[in-house]
């Protein structure tokens, strides 16, 4: 508990009454994992890997993903994903940044986490048209929630039609 709270004194006083990889440059567009899969441990491992990359991991001067950016990305995922959301791909940038991506036959969603509260989003779906839609996001990700929800609907429609 100590590591999670900013109170310093009161926690010691109350007693509970009861119980109480980067991907290669020409990365393949892979169909995302099946919905409902518990992918959080994989995301954890992926983010840990990315923040522990060596400097120059791309053969040039790339930095590892920053701890703050990885932490913020995790918080964003918690904010936008339901239990049925397919696993995203997490792709490192070269300046400590990273991208969270979903790619399906109908929808592409990319969230470029440049810094905490500084995210560039790109959504391309039947709703946005082929040009897609660019968004600058800070702390409100409701548009991404909607896009993910629509992406899921399309996946279900595709599965039903197959």
């Amino acid at each position, binding site marked *: 508990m*100590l*590591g*999670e*709270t*900013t*109170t*310093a*004194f*009161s926690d010691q*006083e*109350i*007693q*509970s*009454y*009861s119980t*109480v990889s980067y991907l290669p440059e020409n990365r393949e567009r892979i169909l995302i994992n099946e919905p409902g899969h518990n992918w*959080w441990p994989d*995301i*954890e491992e992926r*983010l*840990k890997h990315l*923040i*522990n990359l060596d400097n120059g991991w791309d053969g040039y001067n790339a930095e590892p993903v920053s*701890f*703050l950016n*990885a*932490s*913020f990305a*995790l*918080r*964003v995922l*918690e*904010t*936008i*994903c*339901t239990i049925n959301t397919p696993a995203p791909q997490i792709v490192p940038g070269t300046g400590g940044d990273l991208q969270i991506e979903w790619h399906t036959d109908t929808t592409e969603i990319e969230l470029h986490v440049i*810094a*905490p*509260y500084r995210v560039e989003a790109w959504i391309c779906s039947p709703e946005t048209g082929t040009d897609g839609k660019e968004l600058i996001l*800070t*702390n*409100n*990700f*409701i548009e*991404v*929630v909607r896009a993910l929800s629509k992406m899921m609907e399309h996946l279900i429609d595709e599965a039903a039609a197959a």
Partner: protein
Amino acid sequence: MSRPNNLPDYENPPLSEVVLGVQFVPPPGYQQIYSRDVWELFKNDFSKVKEVEALPPSFETFGLPKNRRSDIKLHTGASHDRFWFLSGDETELIQFQQDRLLHNWRKLKDGSNPYPRFENILPKFESELLILEEYFSSNFSSNELEINQCELTYVNQIALEDTSQPFDKWIGIVNIDSLEFENISITTQKLLTRDDEPYGRLTCVCNSGFDQKMEPIIDLRLTVRGAPIKTNIEESLLFLQQGRNLIVNSFDEITTEFAHKKWGRK
């Protein structure tokens, strides 16, 4: 700085701890070895030091209702501890880690130290932020603190007169006395908006329990957390002032008239 006239006030509020804090982007080049220098900045008033586990980064984001919080803890290999710089009487505390600065005040167990009031704590915290900013800018390539999150917490420990006393005598949100609950544990969150856009949350956590003397209490914690409009100290202090007003007004609404009389509401 003066107290807003319309803010509810109590002669003897059940306040046991107040925390003012900010989270910022660590300056490039800063490493844990420099934490000794940071302690030197505050050592005159905070002569004792203690190492504790670091706080993980905290962000208020908005989308789906909070349906899950991951237990994931990211590790970078080497990590920075959190340091407590304690005043001689241990009633005040500065918490420092590479991306956080917080100031805590607490009431002593015997209640002998009156609450110095927010108007006196905030200038201290402002001074500490400016000192830290000056240290970072003098020693690292950092112009000003880039603050991405502010938080303010008030901890109230409400002493019950006996274990059989209904909770709703003190707390208005628990108007369910007929159910004769043995204990309560309630968390509520309110979205804070600015120009129709969310920027933070007011979190209220209410638990029944016992204090160290095994006296029955209700532990009521109100926290305002979110991003300031701009990332500088000035806007962060403004966020904290507005947060204080929200917390005090919410506390007044949550607690009952019976409780207000006990605490000497003015």
